[in-house]
C-alpha cells in the first residue's frame, strides 16, 4: 500500500476564499501595486538607471507642466484619460451581460469615420449643430459596428469574442482605404488632412469638452446599471439566460439594445477624438484604447467610479512613462514594459483575492 501517512501531505494547498472583506481586498490590491512598483524598479535597475529617478520622471511627466503653461502636463494626461474612460464605460453594460465585446477598438474607429464624414462634407453647418451631429454620428457608427456581431450572435449563436475582434481590423482597413482613396486630401499622400476649425470641439480649462461628457457618462452609466429596469435586465441576462426567459424577459431584445448602447458609447469616444484632439481621421485614432479599456473595465469590477479611477491611473502611467523615456533616453518600448509589469502584478493579485494558500502544519 502507498505511504499515506503524514509525510504524504503536500507543502502547500490552494483553497478558495468564500468571502473577502473589503479591507482585505483593498490591502491586497495595495500590496499588488507596491510589488509592481518594486518589480518595475528592478527592471529599470537592470537597464542601468536609477528607479527612483525614473518614477520621479513618471510623476513629473504626468503632472508638472512647462514654465509657460504649468497645466500642460495635466492637460495632456486628461486628454489620454477621456477616450479611455469612455471606452471602458462602453464595455460595462456588455460585460455585465457577459457579452464579450472585444471590439471597442473598432467601434471607436467607426465612430470616428461617421463623424469625420460630417466634418469633411458639411463643415459649413452652424458650429453647434455640426458638433452635435458629429457626436451623434459617432454614436451611430459605433452602434452599427457593434450591431453586426450581435445580430449574428442572436441569429446563429456565433462567437462574439472572435467576431468583434475581427471587426476591429476591418474598421482599421476601412480608414486606410478612405485615407488613400475617396477622402484623400493631397494626391500621393495617404491622409485626410485636418478638419475645418468649425468642426473642432471647444475647450474648457484647456482640454476639449470631452472630459465633461466623459464624467457625465460615468454618472449616467452608474445609475443605468444599478438603478434602472434595463440595468436590472442586463444583470439577469448576464447571470443566466434561462432565468431571464423564465422571468418573461425577451433575451434577444435585451442583448440587442445593450449592444447598441455599448457600441454607441464607444463610437462617441471616436467622435470626440476626431473633433477634440486629432482633428483628422487616421488609423491611429483608437491607438489601442479599445483594448486597454477591457483591462480597465475588469480591474474596475464594472463599477463606473472605480473605472474612472483606474483609467486615470493608466493615463498617468501612459503620459508619465513617455516623459520618463525621453528624459532618460531609453528605448521607446521601456515604458511599455514597465506598464506591462505593473499590469501583470495587479492582475496576478486578483488570484489572491479569490484564493488563499494553506501551508502544511508542523508535524506533531
Amino acid at each position, binding site marked *: 500500500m502507498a505511504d499515506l501517512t503524514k509525510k504524504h501531505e503536500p507543502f502547500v494547498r490552494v483553497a478558495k476564499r468564500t468571502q473577502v472583506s473589503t479591507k482585505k481586498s483593498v490591502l491586497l490590491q495595495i500590496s499588488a501595486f507596491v510589488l509592481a512598483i518594486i518589480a518595475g524598479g528592478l527592471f529599470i535597475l537592470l537597464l542601468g538607471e536609477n528607479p527612483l529617478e525614473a518614477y520621479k520622471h513618471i510623476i513629473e511627466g504626468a503632472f508638472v507642466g512647462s514654465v509657460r503653461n504649468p497645466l500642460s502636463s495635466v492637460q495632456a494626461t486628461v486628454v489620454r484619460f477621456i477616450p479611455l474612460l469612455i471606452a471602458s464605460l462602453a464595455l460595462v453594460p456588455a460585460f455585465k451581460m457577459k457579452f464579450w465585446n472585444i471590439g471597442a477598438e473598432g467601434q471607436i474607429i467607426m465612430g470616428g469615420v461617421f463623424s469625420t464624414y460630417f466634418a469633411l462634407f458639411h463643415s459649413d453647418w452652424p458650429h453647434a449643430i455640426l458638433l452635435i451631429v458629429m457626436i451623434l454620428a459617432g454614436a451611430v457608427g459605433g452602434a452599427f459596428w457593434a450591431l453586426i456581431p450581435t445580430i449574428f450572435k442572436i441569429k446563429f449563436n456565433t462567437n462574439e469574442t472572435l467576431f468583434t475582434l475581427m471587426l476591429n481590423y476591418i474598421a482599421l482597413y476601412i480608414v486606410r482605404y478612405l485615407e488613400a482613396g475617396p477622402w484623400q486630401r493631397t494626391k500621393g499622400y495617404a491622409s485626410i488632412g485636418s478638419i475645418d476649425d468649425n468642426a473642432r470641439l471647444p475647450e474648457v480649462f484647456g482640454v476639449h469638452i470631452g472630459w465633461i461628457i466623459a464624467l457625465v457618462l460615468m454618472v449616467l452609466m452608474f445609475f443605468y446599471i444599478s*438603478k434602472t*429596469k434595463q440595468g*436590472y435586465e442586463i444583470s*439577469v441576462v448576464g447571470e443566466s439566460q*434561462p*432565468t431571464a426567459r423564465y422571468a418573461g424577459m425577451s433575451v434577444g431584445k435585451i442583448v440587442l439594445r445593450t449592444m447598441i448602447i455599448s457600441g454607441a458609447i464607444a463610437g462617441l469616444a471616436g467622435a470626440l477624438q476626431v473633433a477634440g484632439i486629432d482633428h483628422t481621421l487616421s488609423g491611429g485614432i483608437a491607438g489601442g484604447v479599445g483594448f486597454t479599456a477591457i483591462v480597465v473595465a475588469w480591474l474596475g469590477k464594472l463599477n463606473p467610479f472605480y473605472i474612472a479611477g483606474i483609467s486615470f491611473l493608466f493615463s498617468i502611467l501612459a503620459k508619465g512613462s513617455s516623459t520618463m523615456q525621453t528624459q532618460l533616453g531609453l528605448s521607446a518600448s521601456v515604458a511599455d514594459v514597465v506598464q506591462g509589469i505593473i499590469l501583470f502584478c495587479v492582475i496576478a493579485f486578483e488570484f489572491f483575492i479569490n484564493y488563499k494558500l494553506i501551508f502544511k502544519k508542523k508535524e506533531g
Partner: protein
Amino acid sequence: MSDTQYAIELRGITKIFGEIIANDKVDLTVNNGEILALLGENGSGKTTLMNILSGIYHPDAGTIKINGKEVVINSPKDSFALKIGMIHQHFKLVEVMTAFENILLGTNNKLNRKKAAEEIKTLCDKFSLKIDLKKRVCNMSVSEKQTVEIVKVLYRGANILILDEPTAVLTPQETQNLFEILRAMKKDGKAVIIITHKLNEVLEISDRVMILRKGKSIDSIETAKANAKILTEAMVGQAIDLEIERPETEKEPHALDVRHLSVKGADGRMALKDVTFDISSGEILGVAGVAGSGQKELCETIAGLHKVEKGAILFKKENIVGKTPSEIIKAGISMSFIPEDRLGMGLVASMDITHNMLLKSYKNSKGIFLDRKEAKKLAEDLVEKLSIKTPNVSTPVRLLSGGNVQKVLIGREIESNPQLLITAYPERGLDINSSYTIYNLINKQKQNGSSVLFIGEDLDVLLELCDRILVLCHGEVMGVVNAREVTKEDLGFMMAGQKISDGGENNG
C-alpha cells in the same frame, strides 16, 4: 490507539469554508460488516464529511484512521488506495461505453479482458448484482447505471462503500433490490455508509444511525432502538409533528386542462407523449415518477418555456400554447422549479433577496427606474415568515445555504398569489421544519382556491399532501389515481411502466 479496529475512525474532523463551519469536531466510526446510516438535515455537513473521506476536501483539523492506521487523504486516488469506494448521487460513467468498459476504466486490467469478465461475473453472483456487461450506459435505466457504479467500485476492491442518497432516483421496488445488495455486502464484511434523508429507509436498512446537526456529530443510535420520531427529534433538535394536512376544499373542475400534449426533449427524443390530465381549482395534483420521466418538460411547457409539438393547454378554457412566458405569468400561472443545483432557474445567484423578489414583478412599476421599496418589504416579510437564515436582505443569494435559497424562490412564487402554482421538488434538500412550512404554504394556496401542480420525489409526501396523483413514466401518463386510496406499491409499479386506469376520474 483504541482496542477495537474500526474500518473507519474519524476523530475531531473540522472543515471550515470561509465563515461557515461545515464540520465541527465530528467523530464517526464504522465497523466492518456494518451498515451505518448518516442522517442529517441539509447543510448539516454530511456531504462534506464524505467528500473528506473520498479525498475531495482536506480537513482543517482531526484525524482519519482506516483499519486502525492513521492516514492523510489528498486525492480521490489516495482514497481509492485505502479501498474506499464512493457512489455519488450523479453517476460518473462514460455514457457511450458499455458497462464492461466502464468498469475497467482506470484499472490496469485492460489486457486480459476474458479474465476480467469472469472476475466481474463472480463478483456479481456473490452480491446478486444483475448487469448486462455489453449494454451501453446510455441505453440503461437509472437503476442499471447505479448497479454499474457499484460493480465498478467493488471490482476495484473497495472494502468501504459510501452511497450518497442512492435511493433518490429509484422506484420503491428498485430500492428494495438495492437494499438486498447492501445486505449481501454487509454479510461479506464490508463497511457501508449510506447517506439519506428518508427515515423509513434508514430504519429498514441500517444497523446504526449517526446523526449530524449543524456540522456536529450529535448521536449514534442503534437502529433497533430507534423510530422515526426519535430520529427526527435528534436531527432537528426539537419535537415536531410529522403529519401533513390535507384540507378539504370546494373544487371547481377543469381549471387547467392539458390535452394530448406531446413535447420533444433537449436530446430530440419525445419527452412527453400524448399527456392528458386536468386540475381543479382548490386541488393539489401530484406528479410521481422516477427522475427524468418528463417532469421538467411538463413544468416548462406549461410555463411557456418549451416548444409544443402537439396538443393543447387550456387554462380557464383558453389555450395558452404559443403564448410568451410573460403573457402566461400575467394570466396567473406561476412556476417554481427547483433544479438539482437549486439555482439553475428562477433565481439570480449574485443578487440579493430583494432583487430576486423583483425578477417577475419589476415591470409592474412605472418609469425607467427599479422600484425596490415593495420588493424590500416583501423580502423582509419572507425572511421572517419562512425563517430564512440570512444576515440581511442584501446578502447575495448564492451565499445562503441550499434550503434557504429554496425558501426565497418558493416564497416569492407563492406570494404572487398565482391561480396555478407549478412547483417541482419544493422540499428538495430542505430540513424537516422548512419542508412543513412549505407544505402549509401550498395547502394555503389550495384553500384560497388555486390549483397546484406538485412534482414530488418522496412518495410518502405525495400520498399525504395531494388530492390526486399523476404517474409519469418515460413521458407517458401511466394513470391518475386518488391519493387517498392508492398504495405506495401501486405507485411503484406505475412508475416502472405499468398502466393502471382506475380512480383517476375527477369527481369534483
